[in-house]
């Protein structure tokens, strides 16, 4: 099962490598990873997605919690949450294709953020599934380059991950 683990940790050199290192050391995979400082610059928020059954995820979170720099963490997939990923995608757009691509972008509520006579750069935000669906709709053959941010997430309602 796919999980989203969100970690609040000290914004210190070496902290990120400890998190990433733990996954390879213990034989777990990281699917996506995003990290940036929070509104409090001494803290970083790291979100990662991984696959595993309950037992594996329990082990991962226990080991993550043991890292000295990890302050708190939550498995967002355990409750109601909002998740988003941003994608920048460069697609072929010449001749008759241009209108077709534009229409697909509109359907997916994306934006064309750069244009040349032969390509569009499209920006799209949504769940990872939605981004996958867009790539499929456009057709692999049309795609020149894809950049994805990895998943960010936040719990719905009053729940917060903070000090």
């Amino acid at each position, binding site marked *: 099962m796919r999980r989203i683990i969100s970690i609040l940790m*000290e914004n210190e050199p070496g902290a990120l490598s400890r998190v990433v290192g733990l996954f390879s050391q213990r034989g777990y995979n990281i699917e996506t990873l995003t990290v940036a400082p929070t509104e409090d610059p001494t803290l970083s928020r790291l979100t990662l997605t991984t696959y595993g059954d309950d037992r594996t995820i329990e082990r991962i979170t226990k080991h993550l919690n043991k890292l*000295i720099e990890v302050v708190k963490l939550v498995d967002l997939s355990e409750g109601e949450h909002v998740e988003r990923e941003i994608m920048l995608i460069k697609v072929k757009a010449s001749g008759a294709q241009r209108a077709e691509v534009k229409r697909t972008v509109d359907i997916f509520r994306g934006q064309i953020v750069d244009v040349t006579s032969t390509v569009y750069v499209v920006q799209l935000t949504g769940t990872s599934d939605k981004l996958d669906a867009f790539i499929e709709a456009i057709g692999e053959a049309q795609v020149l380059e894809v950049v994805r941010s990895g998943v960010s997430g936040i719990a719905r309602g009053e729940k917060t991950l903070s000090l």
Partner: protein
Amino acid sequence: MVEKLSGAEMVVRALQDEGVEYLFGYPGGAVLHIYDAIFQQPKDAENKVHHILVRHEQAATHAADGYARATGKPGVVLVTSGPGATNAVTGIATAYMDSIPLIVISGQVRSDWIGDDAFQETDMVGVCRPIVKHSFMVQRTEDIPEIMKKAFYIATTGRPGPVLIDIPKDKTAPHIKFPYDYPKTVKMRSYTPITKGHSGQTRKAVDELLKAKRPVIYAGGGIIMGEASEELTALARRLGYPVTNTLMGLGGFPATDELSIGMLGMHGTYEANMAMHNSDLILAAGARFDDRATNDASKFCPNAKVIHIDVDPATISKNVTADIPIVGPVKQVLSEMLSMLDEHPGKPDEKAIASWWEEINGWRQVHGLRYETGEMMKPQQVVQALYKATKGDAYVTSDVGQHQMFAAQYYHFDKPRRWINSGGLGTMGFGLPAAMGVQLAYPDAVVACVTGEGSIQMNIQELSTCMQYGLPIKIININNQALGMVKQWQDMQYGGRHSQSYMDSLPDFVKLTESYGHVGMRVDRIEDLDAAMEEAFALKDRLVFMDIYVDPTEHVYPMHIADGSMRDMWLNKTERT
């Protein structure tokens, strides 16, 4: 006014403020400022830190580790950058696997050279990431006191472990001084070790304990590290339940107590492994269900409920799922169990427990620890002679191999911190340097290092250190002229093909020892063994190397059959369960 100190002086002063007696190390370019600060300590200072110059950095870490295991206080190491630091890696990993508090200070190249592949530059923080509890890289000289305080705090609290402090040379420069004020306390928002177990869980555990008909108390190294030996002993005696210790837990419960059923696991006693397999309740205290203890975890003790007490939540239900997990310091949890028992209306099921003991004693009679004597001396006889000569009251360090298992089986440890071995990593070369740390901690104690001719050669150079500091260790070299444990596996699993497992061209250990200035003895005949032991241990101020030739064909039994359950064992070369 607050005093101003250089980074190097801060390091040494912080060690003094932490009450560090011994610093085990080896100098080199990146730590020369620190070595100068060590030199410049006032000669008669009460809190002076004594530096012990080893002959190889691996030995520095093992010696500090042995010191820590024997005393419960953190061991401290100082090494230079690059090769000095990488030589320490095996010792750091050894301490990590056994949860031993170590502070390892490594020099680093000057900060403006980091990343340039400078002379003797190694990314020590990177190399050590998976084998330390935490690590620090000093960025600013003025941070040194706080980092030192945090390092000691992290290393010694919760589940202990090694902490690395990597210090670039320029951060210790003698002319750059900052105010020094050693913090009295430390608080970290991201690190709050657990100090108390959940009482509700403990109560549930007590209820289960009183319901049990075939209980076993399975006690690990956490009992020793967590100073819980007294509580464990009181609990076991109160209930009258059998206790088995892990390799790391030996001495946590007195081996000569009638409730002790010996060590469990790969080379555990028949009765301990059988009792575990047939139990209906296991109280695991400070143990981690290591694969060497459980055999195949999926076949582990099919009818047992598991209560698991450990200070490290990640250890609970890692290999074997706990029915009643209790996260907390084992000392506190056990003592709470004792007071709950005081108030509990229930009592152990006397009848059931009596018949459980009958069954256990039956196993003990059929297949208790035993071996066949013959013309040649047996390694087991050597350990028994050692036990006799030291009246069972020595500190015994060991290396890794058959000799280690024989020592664990036949030296009956009645006190915690007496048995000092590398259980988790299984590091050959651990024994002699670890014994140095123990002997320094307790100069008047009897310290024996049980080793093999393979292992001892991995840190034999430390005989020189022992001479320099007058450490009267007794080295019991159980010489089977083979990498015995490897050979045993080859006998059992590889059709007796002894690929690279015999020790050719052995040195004359007696002459070798004498050349270092110590006493060497060779023993070949069982008739001479007791007298030789007496003679060696009578030489109270001298290191004695006893090179004892034993039967090279002996195997360690019982031995778990791979991928089986706890009860699947070889009992000798031909008989199995």
